[in-house]
């Protein structure tokens, strides 16, 4: 009874938040509302029994994407959050927005109808995954699917991340990350806070990453948390990548390349591309570390490149 009330409240809040994001005329307010709706969506994911997705939603969807949107909104309209004016025929046109909203409702209605007609088969593929779980080398279904059974898709996801990051870097003319400073003179409060928060965030990120093999967690979530720590450091004016490190932009391809390296190594050793049992656990952990680093590095580049385009 209480759970149904909670679910109903969550569903109504999501619809309300979505509508408010679409219908608000202020860019900064819209990005803040977007972040809030990401948080509520994460709670909804937990209620649906998907803690991995909830973690990813909070870290990536609400956290980093929200920060990116807010940064872009302030760069576009200035800190006063003025109304984005109604351009003729533009997206701010109310008739178009109502039409888009109704179109979205139609799509959602179609999806709900599809789910309803499938309701006799909602068991999912959990049983099939459990049957091969031992071979995959990890104890958790989601990680097994992501990094063992459907490694190909995860590799291509890293490719998408790489394409996005490279596109931003090229478009912004970002020469080298080590030379970029945000130029902000951080006050005492935020400075101390960032110093307090950064080790905590790194700890949480590494913990979430390491837990991916046995419980909810994984590389994307952990990498996003560490990326958020790097962004926080950069936004308060710190030099995130020290001069001594000289991490080249080419390291963005670390995630994508790690999969290729694993595939080449596997082909050199055996005739198939399958890795089973204990070697699989080692490979998966290595891949998770590579993905985590690539995700964190990409997040930082997306943020820095967005500001660097002023040069």
């Amino acid at each position: 009874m209480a759970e149904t009330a909670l679910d109903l409240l969550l569903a109504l809040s999501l619809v309300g938040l979505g509508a408010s994001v679409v219908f608000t005329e202020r860019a900064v307010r819209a990005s803040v509302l977007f972040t809030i709706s990401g948080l509520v969506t994460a709670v909804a994911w937990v209620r649906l029994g998907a803690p991995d997705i909830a973690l990813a939603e909070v870290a990536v969807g609400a956290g980093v994407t929200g920060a990116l949107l807010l940064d872009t909104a302030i760069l576009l309209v200035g800190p006063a959050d003025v109304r984005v004016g109604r351009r003729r025929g533009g997206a701010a046109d109310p008739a178009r927005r109502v039409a888009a909203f109704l179109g979205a409702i139609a799509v959602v209605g179609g999806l709900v109808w599809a789910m309803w007609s499938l309701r006799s088969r909602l068991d999912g593929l959990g049983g099939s995954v459990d049957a091969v779980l031992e071979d995959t080398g990890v104890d958790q279904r989601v990680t097994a699917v992501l990094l063992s059974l459907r490694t190909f898709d995860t590799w291509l996801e890293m490719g998408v991340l790489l394409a996005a990051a490279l596109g931003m870097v090229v478009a912004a003319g970002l020469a080298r990350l080590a030379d970029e400073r945000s130029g902000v003179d951080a006050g005492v409060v935020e400075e101390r806070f960032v110093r307090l928060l950064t080790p905590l965030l790194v700890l949480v990120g590494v913990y979430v990453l390491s837990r991916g093999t046995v419980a909810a967690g994984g590389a994307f979530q952990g990498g996003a948390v560490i990326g958020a720590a790097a962004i926080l450091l950069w936004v308060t004016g710190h030099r995130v990548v020290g001069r001594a490190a000289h991490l080249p932009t080419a390291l963005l391809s670390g995630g994508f390349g790690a999969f290729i390296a694993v595939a080449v190594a596997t082909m050199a050793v055996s005739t198939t591309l399958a890795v089973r049992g204990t070697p699989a656990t080692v490979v998966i952990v290595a891949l998770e570390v590579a993905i985590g680093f690539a995700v964190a590095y990409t997040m930082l580049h997306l943020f820095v490149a967005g500001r660097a385009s002023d040069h």
Partner: protein
Amino acid sequence: MTSVLRDGASAVLLVSGVLFFVAGTVGLLRFPDLSSRLHAVTKADGLGLGLVTAGLVVASPSVAVAAKLLLIWAVALTGSSVACHLVAARDVRAAAARPDSERRRDG
């Protein structure tokens, strides 16, 4: 017996926490000024979160869970305080930069 006491205490703490959250939200919606709205959101919500955390700690199954909850409360409190300070500082700077002829109410 102790279980009933625990659940009762937890329920009382949770409900009072929610009441503080409601008060904070009402303040956020109804106060006229940015500064007073910051007061409402930061102080009332912080106390509400503390009471909710206390209610959950009372009902938590182990010390580890309770410790995690307290850590979450500490980080949330620090974060909201820093955010409040940043918003207020920016508002003070913006108000100082605005010429007196353009004085307007906070939006």
